[in-house]
């Protein structure tokens, strides 16, 4: 009898322990699932001009390409709320727009925060320095190429391509 009770208690304790582990696992899984869903929601998040905001800040660093994804030009921007990684896309578009970015420059960036993997960055659509503004993304968020900056004369000159 006593032996059976002890066995029952052990069994109950084991069941409880297993239940606690299961609950913990479920909780952890739920948390992971929630995190995964958040990440995936961000992965499924297409750029939208209706969600755009702007950053005002000072250029800390400009890189025509960065070792960090997304591939392309990046700007480290000092804002009142801290430093922000700004993705500018194709550096040739800035070059074609004759926009140089140097440390200390005050700029205004129109864009939207996007996620890539487990990191977020600010996807720039328009980069403005003083009176000069250059678009680096289109309204759907796709990166502009230097083809987007062609003047009608330059487009016409492409008829000479062989």
């Amino acid at each position, binding site marked *: 009898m006593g032996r059976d009770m002890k066995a029952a208690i052990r069994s109950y304790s084991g069941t409880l322990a297993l239940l606690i582990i299961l609950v913990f696992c479920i909780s952890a899984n739920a948390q992971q699932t929630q995190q995964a869903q958040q990440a995936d929601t961000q992965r*499924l998040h*297409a750029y939208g001009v209706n969600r755009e905001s702007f950053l005002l800040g000072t250029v800390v660093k400009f890189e025509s390409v960065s*070792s960090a994804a*997304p*591939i392309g030009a990046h700007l480290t921007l000092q804002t009142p709320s801290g430093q922000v990684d700004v993705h500018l896309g*194709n550096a040739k578009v800035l070059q074609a727009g004759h926009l140089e970015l140097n440390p200390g420059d005050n700029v205004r960036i129109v864009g939207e925060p996007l996620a890539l993997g487990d990191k977020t960055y600010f*996807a720039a659509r328009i980069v403005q320095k003083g009176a000069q503004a250059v678009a680096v993304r289109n309204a759907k968020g796709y990166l502009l190429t230097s083809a987007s900056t062609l003047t009608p004369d330059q487009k016409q000159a492409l008829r000479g391509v062989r």
Partner: protein
Amino acid sequence: MKRLLFALATAAGLLSTACGGGSSVQPPPPVGKYSMASLNGQYAFVTNGEVFTSGSNAPVPLARTGVFIADGKGNITGGIEDVNASGTPSNAIAITNGTYIVNADGRGALALNVGQSTLDFGITLTSTSDGLLIDETSNSNQASTGSGNFVLQKAAPFALTDVNGPYVFDFPGLDANNNPESFIGEFTVDNTGAIPTGFFDDNVNGNLTSGGMAPGSIAQDPLQLSTLSSFGRGIANIAGQNFVFYIVDSRRVRFVSTSGGMLSGDAVTQSTNVPTSTSNFNGSFAFVLAGASANGGVTRVGRFTANGATVGNVLGDTNDAGRQHPSTSFSSGTITFDSANPGRGQITFQDTSFPFAFVFYLSSASSGVIQDVTQSGPGVGIVVADGSIELQSGSPFTSANVSGTYAMNWSGLVVAGGSFPIEDEEDLLAQANVSSMTLSGAADLFQFTSATLTPQLDLGVGGVIQINGTDGTSGDGSRNGMTVNLTGANPINFVVYFVNPQLAFFANRDNSGAQRIVVGILKLQQ
């Protein structure tokens, strides 16, 4: 002399990209079964890439489609091409003459004279009927690069009636505002050149649309009437957009747009036994897609097994703007077919909670085109990307059957350069002997990231293919690995999906050295 100059430029260029080291692999002497006589006849060619013109400070997208005639003795005796540079077409450009060389390994060079200019290409034969090429033009008028291929045409004369029946097409490119576009579908051509019916899936800048096509047509070019019979060249209107086309034969027609942007691609005959329901769509398939996301360039390669309406054994690798994402845990895979449009269907599967969705058009039971239609909201695609889907066969893939000489081509974006490094087009064309899964060969590489804009010719190629690699995969065409060593460069790692022992899709899988977003193919030489 020209190749020597290129070689010197290559050495100089590599100093800036080797990052303090790199492979010392040297190209082996060319050996093999090919000769000048292996390139003999009239070939239809395509390339897609970029062009720098004199006076411009940045490259623009470029698509070219045309025909060259090789005499089997090193001479190009004629031809014609149509180009589209970022929506600006130049049509019916005469190729007056030219030269070519083919080495024993099938690698060579092609020089096409167009007026006062010469267009240079690196070529690698995959048989005497076809091959791969990259644009290596760099002269005072323009520098252009891009990857493509050439296919032997049927014997002239050509006629509109050569194009007849149902065709499946994939025309990626740009819309009239230089936004990314993927336009795939199917159409039927009747024996009068009319295109009375068709169905399409279009993704312009993330806007997904699908539906029946407005009636179209194919016709002789009224400005170049004779080019139809001699080169198989004509004009077409498909879904309201104008194109020039080149007939390869009744099974394949090559298109480049002349209005509304820059689209180009092939239409291939849809066979009568194309699957029309899930009951006859079974087997393992490999796929490859490339395009754009809001983050930048994007590639997807992978495979799945279709079993009725369900999808299993899914593996996929995405490179989104330099961020690689290998997925091994997929669920909820489904396949549906569109009963109204033969061969058209949709496939979906979940990676954790991320729902991938694709639409495909099969041209046969073993081949088709595919477009990413994953949506963030109704009608809003998260990427603009398309590519190919191919039935896998011939497994297990081992050193016994993945063996011989292969042509290799990759294309995409790379980060490189000197004082102002940038991301831009990269195209590589190689030939490599694969023996005991070890690569040995030679390659041409053209990166549009250098101020000199000169192709790097005759680089050595080494490396290995890792079947049953470290990621626990098997020899059934699942994810495998490949490391490519190029002279002076750090190792470049890829994920590989074999279609069969003669063909594989690959995409780069690391960014430890130069950043890349490229996809490519390995194709056995015949």
